[in-house]
């Protein structure tokens, strides 16, 4: 096998004949086009380029790339190129490759100074904030329409969302809240035991679970399970133009897709949180019994004594808000997703991140309100 070489021939001094020899394959080591350019620079008399490919044994894209570069050099120097010496297939391919002019790319404003980046980020943040507000507005308008009996969704869809968000989340809600109950009880037990007040572990676990941790942990699970799923579902519908199909039928995608999900999570979040509260308290009782020797009946009595319905109501209000926020963040990310696979992935991430931020912010705000009201 012969590797690829070139011979440069200047028999009439104004024509440079490039003789290609050997195997001009991509995987071989090909001579650099620089050689030809140097020859041209050395001999400014050269006006034309010609080729001789009689000795080429095999060729593929490797030769095409080489020739393309030679042609670029010739073009730059305004030389005439005689393509007669090239194989027929090569001539055809070169014609194809040069048939359409190269598209000029608009230069990117590649300003990476600190000021530019701060401005860029601020603009993007304002934009995404505005988008969120716009979406909130749309959801409010659709809810009003729906309450007036206009533009509903399918009952069967709604039942499915309730089941997916609620019943199917039970195992993970059980696990997480149970473990949170254990953590609370342990942290409390160590501190309270040193005061000889270990029975108050029951109060600590009950109040913390019912008022804060139950709703919050449940909401975070919902953000990962349902919020992310909503963003992916709606985002994929966006990619497949299913949302456009709904719009052209005069069906509001907000009514049809967002409202049932929003309702489903707003209903299911408090129910799951209530269930989670009890799981946490059961875990507390187990720790109390195992570590502190508090009997189950004593623990139960202490818990009943400290909990009032108000605590439950306050916790469940929080859970309702969290559920709505999770569904809102998920649907918003989905509805504003781009139309590609990676955009759907980004939307899913955004759904979860936004949901968790909103949960924490809402938690802080409600807690402050509760304490100002003294409840």
């Amino acid at each position: 096998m012969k590797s690829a070489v070139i011979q440069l021939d200047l028999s009439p001094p104004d024509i440079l004949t490039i003789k290609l020899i050997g195997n001009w394959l991509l995987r071989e080591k090909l001579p650099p086009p620089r050689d030809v350019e140097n020859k041209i620079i050395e001999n400014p008399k050269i006006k034309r380029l010609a080729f001789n490919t009689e000795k080429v044994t095999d060729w593929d894209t490797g030769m095409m790339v080489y020739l393309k570069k030679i042609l670029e050099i010739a073009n730059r120097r305004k030389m005439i190129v005689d393509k007669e010496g090239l194989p027929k297939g090569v001539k055809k391919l070169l014609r194809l490759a040069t048939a359409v002019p190269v598209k000029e790319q608009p230069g990117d404003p590649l300003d990476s100074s600190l000021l530019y980046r701060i401005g860029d980020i601020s603009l993007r943040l304002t934009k995404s904030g505005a988008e969120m507000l716009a979406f909130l507005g749309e959801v409010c308008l659709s809810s009003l329409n729906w309450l007036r009996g206009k533009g509903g969704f399918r009952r069967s869809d709604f039942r499915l969302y309730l089941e997916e968000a609620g019943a199917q989340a039970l195992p993970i809600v059980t696990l997480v809240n149970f473990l949170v109950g254990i953590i609370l009880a342990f942290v409390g037990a160590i501190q309270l035991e040193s005061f000889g007040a270990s029975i108050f572990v029951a109060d600590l676990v009950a109040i913390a679970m019912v008022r804060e941790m139950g709703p919050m942990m449940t909401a975070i699970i919902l953000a990962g399970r349902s919020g992310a799923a909503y963003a992916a579902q709606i985002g994929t519908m966006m990619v497949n133009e299913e949302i456009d199909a709904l719009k052209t039928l005069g069906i509001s995608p907000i009514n049809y897709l967002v409202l049932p999900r929003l309702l489903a999570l707003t209903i299911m979040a408090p129910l799951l949180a209530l269930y989670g509260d009890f799981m946490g308290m059961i875990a507390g009782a187990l720790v109390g019994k195992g570590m502190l020797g508090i009997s189950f009946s004593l623990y139960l009595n202490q818990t009943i004594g400290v909990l009032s319905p108000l605590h439950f109501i306050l916790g469940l209000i929080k859970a309702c808000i969290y559920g709505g926020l999770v569904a809102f963040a998920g649907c918003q990310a989905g509805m504003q997703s781009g139309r590609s696979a990676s955009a759907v992935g980004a939307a899913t991430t955004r759904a979860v991140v936004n949901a968790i931020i909103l949960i924490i912010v809402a938690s802080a705000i409600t807690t402050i309100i509760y304490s100002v009201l003294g409840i």
Partner: protein
Amino acid sequence: MPAHIEVRNLTMAFGSFVIQRDLNFSIERGEIFVIMGGSGCGKSTLLRHLIGLIEPASGEILINDRNFWASSPEERENLLRRVGVLYQSGALWSSMTLAENVAMPLDVATELSPSQIREVVSYKLSLVGLAGFEDFYPSEISGGMRKRVGLARAMALDPEILFFDEPSAGLDPINSRRLDDLILELRDSLSATVVVVTHELFSIFAIADNSVFLDAETRTMRAVGNPKKLRDESNDKKILEFLKRGEI
């Protein structure tokens, strides 16, 4: 010289549902071969069998005289390296730029340096008339352009066999004609074998050297031959109906 691709007694089935049975035909080197038939007859499924995505229920597929499914996984991979496929809607990876899409096969199968790959990619894109579009994303270009980038990707490794799944689907008549011309040009200049799945009569008559006609009702092939010849000489009512758009 043996046929480039040979199909022997191929039966395609999903579970117990037979899609096509007893297919026998061969595709010669450098020929443009069309797999035609009505919607739902199993054209695309046959293509998916030929490119090794689905294992046949029974029968053999020989590429370069090698039994594809009886070969070891390494051999199969080697055979597939010499095959390029243009999927129906381009099947570009949406998270990559056009250049990265075309570079992917080169990255995987060759040991070229990044700068060499960049040169090859820009040459391949220029072949399909998209020079300068390297840094665009698939979502930023039209369906026809996506198809052409798909073709550039299919050609990245200088394949011996090029498969096209419904090349004219979703293209206007002029662009579809251009793509047909491009297929002919590429076959002539690269001396590759081309297998096309289509039901577009214009394309069939414009490009095919040979063809196989699959029937959806009897679930087997009804004829092999040059489509123009089939149109003029066949006595089979079904084939004539298809090739003359129902105007017998």
